[in-house]
């Protein structure tokens, strides 16, 4: 299967085509996608665009959902 290169917090990872950003974040060994209002580390919960726990910055756009966004070549993903 073709692999797509992208970066997560500056770290280069390769994911199978068709992967979502949340999968790339896990592959980069990044545990959390965001921190809550009280500073708790959070990661995807619902996996289907409902809970907003997986929101990350993608190519400079804040609050993108990692579980519903497909990985694209050269994408820059930043967790908060």
């Amino acid at each position, binding site marked *: 299967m073709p692999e797509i290169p992208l970066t997560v917090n500056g770290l280069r990872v390769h994911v199978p085509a068709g992967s979502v950003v949340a999968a790339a974040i896990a592959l980069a060994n990044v545990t959390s996608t965001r921190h809550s209002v009280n500073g708790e580390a959070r990661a995807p919960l619902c996996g*289907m665009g409902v809970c907003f726990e997986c929101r990350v910055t993608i190519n400079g756009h804040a609050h993108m959902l990692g579980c519903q966004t497909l990985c694209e070549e050269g994408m820059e993903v930043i967790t908060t």
Partner: protein
Amino acid sequence: MSQQAVDVLIVGAGPAGLAAASSAAGSGARVALMDDNPTAGGQIWRGGLEHATTTRARHWLTHASTEAITLYARTRVISQVQPGVLLVETPTGAREICFQQLILASGARERFLPFPGWTLPGVMGAGGLQALVKGGLPIAGKRIVVVGSGPLLIAVAAFLKGKGARVQLIAEQTSWSRLGRFGLQLSRSAGKLRQAQSLGWRLRGIPLRANSWIKKAQGSERLEMVTVQRGKRVETFPCDYLACGFGLVPNTELASALGCVIEHGAVQVDERQQTNCPGIFCAGEATGIGGLDLALLEGQIAGFAATGQTEAARALFSARERERRFARQLASSFALRDELKHLAEPETLVCRCEDVSYGVLQEHLTWRGAKLQTRCGMGPCQGRICGTATSFLFGWTPDSVRPPVTVARIASLVYTHEDQEE
């Protein structure tokens, strides 16, 4: 403002939406099918035609990929501009879609119950974990505990095992006697029995416990272990992921915002799947949890009815009634036990968006009061997670939904206004 006009607009491209689209398109109508995911298929046929594994998935996904049906992927409804016009947000900006008939097939989400440690990374919905694994999350060799209730637990455990995960345990909260009765009901439907037998075979080696439920999850930076209660006994299991499935709840927010009547958490429809709002139909899990077979039937009926194919719709009524009966049996077999209302400790968070704890919420009497005083339900998910939880924990009913129906970019909201001025 970019504007499209169609005869039938369908929101949600899961099984109900796909069935509605192809049934409506058969009349010659121009159909638009919209979904917030990158591909059609919904949760159950996630990934679309390319990843379809069953004949039925291929059948419906193929029938909905014709020229008469325009698919708007990664598109969310923001609001109703006026009757017959919805404002939607696509990856490239906002646009308006005008329609004659609207079919809502917004599906369901998982019910999450708060327990100590449920906010740790690694604690997920059972369907949610399955969805992410389908989306490339590496799972081979990972230790997984599955907790909750209902046939989804078994399906998810079998799926994860098939992907190389080490499923440690399935903890089902219902009793063996209820499970037994459900098994008897399954045996009356050859198709459902075959599915169950195939799942049972794929599950071999995974312990299944009834009368068992999650007590807490622990870990420093992420999940490391869970404690499961069975009667008076508690046991701990080291694990990498906890998959929680406490049943599904209909997604009724859009229907509610459009003025459709919601009762018992589901969109109310007549025999043609039409809501109280003329020209607005609803099909699938949003009308009440009933599973794939019922969603396909309701979708077809809605698609036929919305395009005047009355006889074709009527021909499916009795099959729909059979599936609805099965759905009622399913709901009673896996009704959630009262002990699950007392898993949270005072400091356990209930609202994850605004970090509002169980102890703080206990001081309030209503959803509205809690919202106003604590910001519970006022974060990005707009109460979709904690509203469902507090409805089970405290019996609170969420208020009506106001636009925007989902989180929207400011640019999408001001777009309409600018356009009017031009």
